[in-house]
């Protein structure tokens, strides 16, 4: 195995590792890799301000998500407010018994009355008196 092959394999195969064990330059590559991975153990300080900021971000994000959720939930139709009822005191009236007719009232029809004519003969045969008498109230 050549140096180039071992490096392309990132020294992850047995053969590549065996090559690195016997090659000074590839051994340096392996040591660089170990040092690189060691950088992961270093904790980067997070200042308190950043932590506070993070909390703010989280709160804002949660509020935003909640806002989206509220916007997505179908809204119920809100009925218009009822018209205020103003209580009006009704005058107290004496109870009146009202009889509800069970039958339609019968209205007596007035009979058609023919006018009465009176013929009065006088002593003079040329004079005759006629009286018309109108029908009055029954």
């Amino acid at each position, binding site marked *: 195995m050549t140096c180039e092959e071992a490096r392309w394999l990132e020294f992850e195969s047995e053969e590549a590792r065996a090559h690195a064990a016997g090659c000074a330059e590839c051994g*340096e590559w392996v040591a*660089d890799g170990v040092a*690189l991975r060691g950088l992961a153990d270093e904790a980067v300080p997070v200042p308190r301000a950043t932590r506070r900021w993070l909390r703010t*971000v989280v709160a804002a994000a949660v509020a935003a*998500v909640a806002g989206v959720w509220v916007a997505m939930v179908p809204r119920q139709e809100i009925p218009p407010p009822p018209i205020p009822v103003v209580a009006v005191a009704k005058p107290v009236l004496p109870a009146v018994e009202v009889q509800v007719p069970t039958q339609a009232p019968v209205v007596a029809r007035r009979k058609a009355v023919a006018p009465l004519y009176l013929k009065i003969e006088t002593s003079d045969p040329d004079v005759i008196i006629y009286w018309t008498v109108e029908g009055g109230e029954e």
Partner: protein
Amino acid sequence: MNPALPLQPDELAAWVRKAQGGNREAMDHLLRTHEQGVLRVALRMLGRLEDAQDAAQEVFLRLCRSLDQFDDTRELRPWVYRMTVNVCLDMLRRRRTQLELVDEGAALPVAERRLIEEERKAAVEWGLSRLAPRERAALLLREVEGLTTREVAVALEVEEATVRSLIYQARGHLREWVKRYEGRVRK
């Protein structure tokens, strides 16, 4: 529950679903679970703690804003790291200059560490800061954060073959920088 403990994918998906439902505790838990990883990557990408903290805040803000669009059948970790790398690349672009190079005087005190491992670590750290941003991101995610090649591909939005190539190149460049560092220290 201790956020430092690695979560199984199912557990993580459950927390994601809770957070998507507006559960504050779940959201807080997700942030804490990824806090250190995001900060570590941001710090190595940007080189300054203050910038890394700014980047982490931006990442978590984006995470909170877009979590409801996240498909919970996917893995959250590569998605978070994708945001982290993108935020860091944006910040580097805005900065328009490469990382402030650590001068030799600043690197030398580290050389006083007697342990070889510590010295190697310092050299690697210094070498990382010299890599091109995309190479650095690939190496950090793969080697430091322990993502699989597939997860790095998702995080960097490239093919897996591209990730392997990026890592191979990055390791070669890193080796060159480490050699230079060691050369300076030994002088």
